[in-house]
């Protein structure tokens, strides 16, 4: 075990710091994911509306998010807004904003795809039963959409959790940064620590992402 360098994690408060770093990652991703799902549902429904102007705006939004690397978005929001507008947004707020901005666009596109995949006959039948548009969406379309969405959105959620490692670029010390700090601080005494420490980080990410994936499978079965 010593050759893996895992022992460096038990020096001082190293392991506790790693867990604190993990909590920072979870906190940022959890808030962003919840906001992205809520806003993504709205944006997704808007995307299906036949309105050229709205369509163009959402297209620009989605493409912007797809083209811009998250790192660039983080820099623009954290440093750019201070430069241009003089706002002093905290690093955490910037991170949550960027991840929500990204997640909403992708989630919206997933919602759009799921709604489009529901046969037109479902809309027509609901309308024939005398439901109005809002009722149709709430009672007929959205429940079916949500079921189709689960596997797709799990993909997005776990990707968002893993991408939070980028926030170290705006000074937030999250789990991966703590890992690097521990490895570097022990470079001389334990040169192989990188392997062991990253292995533990891998396990931590797994412990976070796995229950989400299990929950998804459960929900998929239950709502099928």
């Amino acid at each position, binding site marked *: 075990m010593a050759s893996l360098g895992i022992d*460096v994690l038990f*020096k*001082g*408060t*190293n392991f506790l*710091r790693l867990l604190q770093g993990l909590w920072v990652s979870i906190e940022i991703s959890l*808030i962003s994911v919840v*906001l992205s799902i809520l*806003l993504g549902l709205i944006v997704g429904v808007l995307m299906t509306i036949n309105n050229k*102007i709205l369509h*163009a*705006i959402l297209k*620009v*939004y989605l493409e912007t998010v797809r083209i811009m690397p998250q790192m660039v978005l983080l*820099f623009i929001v954290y*440093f750019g807004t*201070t*430069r*241009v*507008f*003089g*706002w*002093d*947004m*905290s690093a*955490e*707020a910037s991170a*949550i*904003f960027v991840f*929500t*901005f990204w997640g*909403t666009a992708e989630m919206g596109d997933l919602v759009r795809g799921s709604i489009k995949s529901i046969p037109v006959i479902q809309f027509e039948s609901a309308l024939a039963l005398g439901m109005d548009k809002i009722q149709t969406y709430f009672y007929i379309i959205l429940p079916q959409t949500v079921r189709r969405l689960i596997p797709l959105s799990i993909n997005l959620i776990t990707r968002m959790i893993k991408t939070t490692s980028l926030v*170290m*670029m*705006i*000074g937030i*010390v999250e789990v991966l*940064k703590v890992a*690097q*700090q*521990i*490895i*570097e*601080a022990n*470079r*001389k005494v334990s040169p192989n620590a990188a392997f062991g420490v990253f292995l533990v980080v891998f396990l931590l990410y797994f412990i976070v992402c796995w229950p989400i994936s299990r929950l998804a499978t459960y929900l998929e079965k239950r709502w099928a």
Partner: protein
Amino acid sequence: MKKNFLSKVTGLALVGTLAVSGLTACGSSASSSDVASTGEDAVEASSEAAGFRTLDEIKESGTINIGVFSDKSPFGFVDENGEYAGYDVYFAERIGQDLGVEINYVSTEAANRIEYLQTGKVDIILANFTVTEERAQEVDFALPYMNVALGVVSPDSAVVESLDDIGADDQIIVISGTTAETYLTKNYPDIKLQKYDAYAEAKTAFENGNGVAWANDNTEVIAFSLENEGYTVGIPSLGDQDTIAPAVTKGNETLLNWLNEEIETLGAENFFHAVYEATLLDTYGADYEDTLVLEGGK
């Protein structure tokens, strides 16, 4: 159309910010209106809008924000108790003590050091910041407190003490993209270089005897020769001498002047030699103290 988009973005921003509960005071509306104003006020306005804090403002607030590396041992790193430590941090601690303020350390990366200063999100960068002309146009450097240069390490059996000794068929190992590569290509075009992408590859190649010598930052080669038996740094300082200095936001003269005075005063008590002995001695040994340390900015 534009308005819709903007209001949506702003809406998202609000939601995002509110979610963290602490809606951070937006640099005050006064400073954002200053940005818009141009003309004679421009210089003053930009100092306010860019948000750098003068010496008095820092003292008043009771906290100074200092950007340091958190994973570059032994210059700036976090020890096993979660405390910042290292050569740069030792100096930072002294700055805090002499200013009579608390220190808020900000973990920086090589790529965002200038951004941090230009947006005033930190007051001082003390992150192994090498002084270059390009950087000096973006930020203001105080007096330097450390030297860096290139160094060349070679096996004990055939120590390379001058680059003129390199034979026509001999090769020198370098890491691509480093100053060592640029310097040798420019100044010694006849010397054959063996280029590697990563530190570990270059190290293995050198240990296997693929080249007669290895050129890199002198701190790196010195550390290598001390950690590995049988190698000597024949040329500890090659080419242009670069320096490492604290940096502040461009135009923050009060803080810059204070830092310069501080570094001169500390020179009188040989402060940086003490820092070297406390933080770098383990890695670089006593022989290189005078090569690396710069006292009183000279």
